[in-house]
């Protein structure tokens, strides 16, 4: 059911009533409800939180998204989408990615702030912290933070700031340490993996533009594979951090920023990977996409490039500098 318009004007497809939004809402709200009560039970031990509600919510949400995208794809195949509507999708994706950039901006801003301002202030350096020596006697600032302010004054039992938790610094940080063993430094390999996946997805795109679906499928599949490898290496790194480096979420601000940035990045990699995987399945299984109509793929690949660029910054500011 499309909106009828006059002939000289390409019609803009305005969908009729749709249940999608309401279903997605139910999924989303159930998810946050379940997550809130679940977390509260975990931390405060009260309430009858049920993680089950979260899973049900997420399932509904995922199911709705699936149907939603399927509907959109079918509409496109049925030729309902005008060039103008396609442009709306392009704009939508672009500004969505922009909002994601700003999400990471908040975390990078936090990292910058603690590294360059708050950290030195805690150690009594700089205009903002001339007198802090009175509180954190003996605290020396360095990045990665070798010991937390709390440790420097002898632990949480101290009368000051007693109630804010216990923060024990790591034994070994993730920063680039041993130049002679650079080949054993996983982040470097992961960077190479992710960077090359940006190249492979571009090659896939070129293949598609040439109408070479074989090339497209091959290189896109390769991209997804690289993404999976990246996630596994990252997971292995986390395992090492927790098991061998003593680096956890509780390791003071270094651990906090490290896991927050890499964690959210990793999550976005998984999202991007899923998007690409779906495009791959669409292409291989259903033969979707032509040289001049492949926005689903293009949007996913933009997202992938975005995830890649974030990693470059992350690699610089979290691992190297």
């Amino acid at each position, binding site marked *: 059911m499309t909106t009828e318009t006059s002939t000289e004007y390409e019609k803009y497809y305005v969908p009729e009533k749709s249940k999608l939004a309401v279903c997605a809402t139910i999924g989303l709200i159930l998810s946050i409800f379940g997550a809130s009560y679940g977390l509260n039970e975990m931390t405060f031990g009260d309430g009858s939180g049920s993680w089950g509600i979260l899973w049900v919510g997420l399932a509904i949400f995922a199911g709705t998204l699936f149907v939603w995208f399927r509907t959109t794809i079918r509409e496109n195949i049925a030729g309902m989408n005008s060039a103008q509507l396609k442009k709306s999708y392009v704009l939508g994706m672009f500004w969505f990615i922009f909002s994601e950039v700003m999400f990471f901006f908040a975390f990078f801003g936090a990292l910058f702030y603690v590294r360059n301002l708050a950290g030195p202030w805690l150690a009594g350096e700089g205009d903002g912290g*001339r007198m802090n020596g*009175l509180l*954190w006697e003996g605290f020396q600032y360095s990045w990665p933070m070798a010991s937390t302010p709390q440790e420097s004054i002898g632990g949480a*039992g101290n009368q*000051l*700031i007693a*109630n804010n*938790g216990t923060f024990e610094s790591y034994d070994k940080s993730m920063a680039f340490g041993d130049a002679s063993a650079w080949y054993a430094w996983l982040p470097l390999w992961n960077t190479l993996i992710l960077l090359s996946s940006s190249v492979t997805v571009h090659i896939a795109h070129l293949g598609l533009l040439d109408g070479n679906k074989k090339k497209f499928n091959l290189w896109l599949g390769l991209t997804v594979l690289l993404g999976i490898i990246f996630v596994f290496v990252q997971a292995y790194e986390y395992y090492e951090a927790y098991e061998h480096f003593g680096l956890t979420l509780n390791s003071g601000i270094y651990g906090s920023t490290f896991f927050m940035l890499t964690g959210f990045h990793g999550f976005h990699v998984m999202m991007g990977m899923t998007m690409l995987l779906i495009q791959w399945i669409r292409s291989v299984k259903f033969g979707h996409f032509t040289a001049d109509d492949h926005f689903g793929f293009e949007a996913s690949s933009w997202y992938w490039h975005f995830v890649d660029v974030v990693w470059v910054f992350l690699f610089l500011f979290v691992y190297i500098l």
Partner: protein
Amino acid sequence: MFLKAKRLTALALGPVLMLLGLYSASTAAADAKVNEINMPPGVTNVGQSIFDLHMTIFWICVIIGVLVFGVMFYSIYYHRKSRGVTPATFHESTKVEIAWTVVPFFILIAMAVPATSTLLEIYDFEDAEMDVLITGYQWKWKYEYINEDGENVAFFSNLRTPQSEIYNTADKGEHYLLEVDEPLVIPVDTKVRFLVTANDVIHAWWVPELAVKKDAIPGFINETWTQATEEGVYRGQCAELCGKDHGFMPVVVNVVSKQEYAEWMAAKQAEAAEIKQLMAQTFSMDELMERGKGVYDRSCAACHGANGEGGLGKAIADSPIATGDMAGHLEVGINGVPGTAMQAFGGQLNDVDMAAVITYQRNAFGNNMGDMVQPIDVFNHKKG
């Protein structure tokens, strides 16, 4: 009631003042505090600079306002359709548009100059003659005089207004909510540097007449200073939302002559020495219970209820902790319960008070444990 007639007049006068938008630097009345409508210039040079700055900007805004609204009302009156005017059609003029971009810009520069110099004055922390470390707690202030030579003197400053006044069962006193059990005392004509921090959440130490407001950030020390030129009692309040009793943590500063200050300081130091002595003593049950009730009402009742029935904190009556193992009870009192509002009181109460309040909790509200805690037990528990 307190100054009722005057208040009624003010109530009637208020709207008139409002309509005129009149600010006056001071009201003529003898007790200038009631229905004050402007910032107090206070008793410091910085306060005076801030006040002057405030008035300057205020008048600039008034003038701009009169011009802008004047034009507007002229237009409302003379260019109304009912007067039979035909509307003009102009809709731009580069010249005036540039003018009203540039002129405000210069006005702003004129404001920025005195603002900058006042700010730099405030930020000049050098040459302070004495330091006081101010720590915000939920919901009281701790003052610690950092004496280069000799003992530091430290004490807490709690709201003194009784609950009966707050809950309207007694008449409210003159300094309702703005009175404490023990004010900060500082000498006149002395540059006093305040080192402001907090133990739990963010508070802000504010005394309008000393022209000081500084946030107390847990884990960081902020600097600020004042130099009062007149003796007197100056009152303020915590100015950053810090939880339930944010409205009930006043600041009172007693500015006294240098001589009086020295005497006061000497007395305080003697008192501190006395407490040290008390710590070594053994108390009777009655002594502990009496002292303990005082401490409980002051420090614990806000969360645990006047009768131990609980509130923000868990009930003390019948509490498994307060009727259980003594060491466990001491542990909670001294080190708090991390991650909850139950703070570590070990640093806030001296060992005598801690012993007393724990004893009290174990024997009041129907918790008839019959056992006692002595200061030395507290001391030993802290040692570990």
